[in-house]
């Protein structure tokens, strides 16, 4: 039906079932409830790690299933990874400053 050019065609033969989407939706809803409830548990410094971990799982579900990245070309996956990496460069390299400010005292104080 559709000619295969040298470009890999995205999503063409993959149409997910309603069931798949419903399951993902339910998983996302449950994760939302979980993250809200877990916030009331005292995990100390670990709270933010758990909250972010759950958020990342939710993001992966949306990206893989709703945004069809499961079926996407390598290029799309690279673009996505690139964006996430660059975000971490922004946060991480700025942290080399803010995170190390207290390591050395100010001379004279």
């Amino acid at each position, binding site marked *: 039906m*559709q*000619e*295969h*050019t040298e*470009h*890999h*065609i*995205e*999503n063409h033969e993959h*149409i*997910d079932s*309603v069931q798949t*989407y*419903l399951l*993902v*939706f339910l998983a*996302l*809803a449950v994760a*939302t*409830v979980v*993250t*809200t409830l877990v*916030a*009331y*548990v*005292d*995990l100390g410094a670990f*709270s*933010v790690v758990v*909250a*972010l971990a*759950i*958020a990342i799982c*939710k*993001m992966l579900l*949306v*990206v893989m*299933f*709703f*945004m069809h990245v499961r079926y996407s*070309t390598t*290029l*799309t996956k690279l*673009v*996505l990874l*690139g*964006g*996430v990496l*660059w*975000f971490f460069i*922004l*946060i991480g390299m*700025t942290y080399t400053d*803010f995170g190390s400010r207290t390591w050395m005292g100010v001379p004279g104080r």
Partner: protein
Amino acid sequence: MHSEEQTLALREQFDTAAQQKDASTLGMWIFLITEVMFFGGMFLAYSIYRAKFPEVFAIASTSLNVKIGAANTLVLICSSFTMVMAVRASQLGKLRDIVWWLVATLILGFTFLAVKAFEWNEKFELHHVPGMANFHLNGVGASMQGPASIFFSLYFAMTGLHALHMVVGVGILTWLIIETKRGKFSAVYMTPVDIAGLYWHFVDIVWIFLFPLLYLIDRHLNIQ
């Protein structure tokens, strides 16, 4: 039913429909990456200040209504479901289904925005709007009102930017509904629905991070 050629809309710089779809999809993904960096700057500011003023941020966060926030998160997740169902309908060429799923997404989008407006209004009533003379956060000393206003500045800036993106999304959905009703799409040509879906899901993902970062800081302390 419209013929495939009429709905194809192949532009002259492209050789095949597949090339056009590939290019459009890649273009949208790159645009989404620019949005990641755009929101990223605000996430950076948020993380620096949260690390600098952890107690103030916790107190300020608990003044937000977590039930409403969680409910709104579910609304948006629901809208992502309806959006992907609209894309699925377009892959199957079912025009009427596309319209219904897009309308459902639109309604959920409006719901989210209405709830947001309600929440913002509540912030005004509680004097939690930074930059206004009557700004005051209870539970935090006078010297820390400044950092408290930074939390709320980030709250308004981040949820505001997000809401602006939702408004644009609502506009795009409206346009898609009109175009679908005019028979512009089919199983062979549904690229605009597909890439609008990508945009909508991205806006959902931003909220997936905003919700815990703004509403769920140290709730276990039960400060308010």
